[in-house]
């Protein structure tokens, strides 16, 4: 069904989702680490906004709560922690060349198309809106994964991971009007712990191979 017949809020959600998708492309191509973190923060903010909007549309009260949770976690806390880590690791000036940026972006586009093609047969017309949102969030997840495949800098990989999580949140919120609260909390908690651990590992890695280039973590190979 076309955009025209959607209620305004849904249009708004679609717009935000589109922006989030765009941001993860930016994230994919962004070479400066600090900038990438900022982009990620904005993406988190967008997801929070989507949550808020969905909360406005609907019935589920606890969505307001989870919107705030998302905002704090994704837009503020995690970016701040990453930023701090980057500073303590002395990586503010760090930039990373992708080998074939154009190709990577094309791959990302292909993934978007793929995920849309995938969800097409999913449900009857009635839910075209959610279907499209799911397509977008699936694309976010896949692009995040793609980013982890192509970035060989630990922090960048973590960013990829986090943007995958953003995709998940987007799906959870927009497709299902939010998971049960206990799950939301659990997920958030896990994410936080994960972030802390990532921080720990950055230092462990650096002290073991004094670099954060994951390609140099290749002692445990079985190919001679």
């Amino acid at each position, binding site marked *: 069904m076309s955009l025209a017949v959607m209620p305004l809020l849904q249009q708004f959600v679609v717009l935000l989702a589109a922006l989030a998708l765009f941001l993860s492309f930016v994230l994919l191509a962004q070479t400066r680490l600090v900038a990438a973190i900022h982009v990620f923060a904005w993406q988190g903010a967008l997801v929070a906004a989507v949550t808020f909007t969905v909360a406005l549309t609907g019935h589920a009260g606890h969505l307001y709560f989870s919107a705030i949770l998302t905002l704090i976690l994704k837009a503020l806390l995690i970016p701040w922690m990453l930023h701090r880590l980057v500073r303590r690791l002395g990586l503010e000036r760090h930039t990373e060349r992708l080998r074939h940026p154009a190709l990577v972006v094309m791959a990302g586009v292909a993934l978007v198309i793929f995920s849309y093609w*995938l969800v097409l047969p999913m449900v009857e017309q009635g839910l075209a809106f959610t279907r499209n949102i799911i397509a977008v969030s699936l694309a976010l997840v896949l692009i995040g*994964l793609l980013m982890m495949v192509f970035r*060989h800098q630990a922090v960048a990989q973590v960013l990829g991971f986090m943007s995958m999580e953003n995709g998940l949140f987007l799906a959870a919120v927009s497709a299902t009007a939010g998971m049960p609260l206990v799950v939301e909390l659990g997920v958030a908690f896990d994410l936080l712990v994960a972030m802390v651990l990532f921080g720990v590992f950055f230092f462990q890695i650096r002290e073991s191979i004094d670099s954060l280039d*994951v390609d140099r973590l290749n002692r445990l190979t079985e*190919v001679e």
Partner: protein
Amino acid sequence: MSDSPLVLALSSLWLALGSSAISLLAGREPRLLRLAAVPLLGLAGTAALVAGLWTLIAETNASAILPLGLPWLPWHVRLDPLSGVFLVLIGLVTGAVGLYGRDYVRHFEGGRESLITLGGFSGLFLAGMLLVVLADDAFVFMIAWEVMSLSSYFLVAFQHEQAANRRAAFLYLLMAHVGGLAILLGFGVLAAFGGGFDFASMRAAELTPLWAGVAFALAFLGFGMKAGLAPLHAWLPEAHPVAPSHISALMSGVMLKVAVYGFIRVVLDLNGEVHWSWGVTLIAVGGLSALVGVLFALVQTDLKRLLAYSSVENLGIVFIALGLALLFQSTGHPNLAALALVAALYHALNHALFKSLLFLGAGAILHSTHERDLDQMGGLLRRMPWTGSFFLIGCLSISALPPFNGFVSEWLIFQSALQAWNLESGVLRSLVPIASAVLALTGALVAATFVKVYGIAFLGQARSRHVRRARPSPKGMWAGQGVLAALCVLFGVLPTQILGLLDPVAEQLLGTGVPQAGANGWLWLTPISAETASYSAPLTILLLALIAGAAIWWFKRRASWRVRRCDPWDCGFAAPTPRMQYSAASFAQPIRRVFALLFLIDEGQEQGADGVTRYRLRIADRARGWLYLPVARAVDSSARQVARLQSGSVRLYLGWTLVTLLVLLWVIS
């Protein structure tokens, strides 16, 4: 009453387990092994023997269910004539080994090897074999089978200091495992049709010819592998010799027969309809094994290796006979099939007797000279008279010479082969005689082999110092050999009685026995009819004795009975030294040269560490290069390919995840 043999058999099972349990204490008190564990083994053997004989004489047929196994598949055990025969076989050999082992294991006391291993696994080994024979469903059969393989593997690896023994053990276990899997698969096929894993429902199963063939092929692969049939035999001469000698006797003498039992059980009892092509396959493979086995035995210089190879040959003969049985059965001559089957069983029994006798003899030599290499031996007959005489009987029996037992079974096999004119198809009619030609050639070569063994080891002059100082082996050891030797003669002289014992098996499996065999009284063995063929072992030995006695008596009357001792003449050359004798290698040289294309011969001189140039002769088995190594290479190379998965780069790993995900999503939608 009818199931008391079964009770007895089970109690022998418990005795075997008890012996292994007792030897767990041997670590603290070494004498326990010799005083308790080994005698218990013998006792278990005797119990099994009695149970088996009872079954065969009373023709009972008892079955029971043990409270073990899966909830819906408890352990079924059954004791029918077929099991009975093999119980007798196991019992005879184990009993003798029990006698022998008491003194043999003594020299392991205070050695570096743990007696617990030896005693514990010997008991388990026996228990496994007994249980295989008693098993009445595939599950317990497989368990018993693998227990047998596994415990014998531990016994092969018993003296694991030498790398060669370890390799042998590994190869042995690998082959055993593969064979076991094949057997399991075969049972699976039968069970799929029978709808149950107990033998009763397998018997009832109606297989389509194709699947029956598959089941046969799998069973033949599995059991044939265990029986060491060529070309899958290469593990056997590695594994059997390295175990302690009394265990080698059990392995070569008994375990191979357990494989024969399994084959008979599956193919003739469970698998119903037989197809003539199976018989042909068996005859072909059996013939190949017989020839390969005997030729490689002939060129060996390690006594125990030689014996192991000759086991390959004898199993080949057994399978030729089984092949004839299948052939006749499939072409509708049950009575001839019965003859061939009985001949096969008879030969299995005989081989068990003389092969274990020979292994025990080899053990006795090893015990008193620490020598396995024929080229170091010589003149042992005068130093170990008892062992020498018993070993001679073993050699005569295995060379199928009248009036000893080996001859009777081979004679029976020839007789059944000569009935090939009954077959309708001309092709088969002309194929069987070729098999018998192979059999004849084998027989002659075996004679050559054992002339070599006995002549080199026991006759002539000692070729090394420690052999010159050999002491006679203790009583227990030659008693064990004596029992077996006596049995060899007995089985040779009273064939009609033995056939009478084996008859129930043929009745059970083929519905008809060989009643005519003893029809003309116990003196005359007439497998088909008195006109066709007859053999009277008792009279033969009687006449031999009479004439020899007469001759001796005739000479004794004369003054010149005493002989004068003098130097050997040797065509007037200088007094011969031990080093001038023919060695094992030189004895075999002419035949080796005639059959040269079969061996991988590496011959030449090599500079020893002491600077002395020596003659070098290594004879390798082609089967290794043809069958074993290619498989190993294939596995290794594919492993190398697969290893690329583990490249070490986390990004590639993530890539794998992504690709897998995308592919799956693609697939499902």
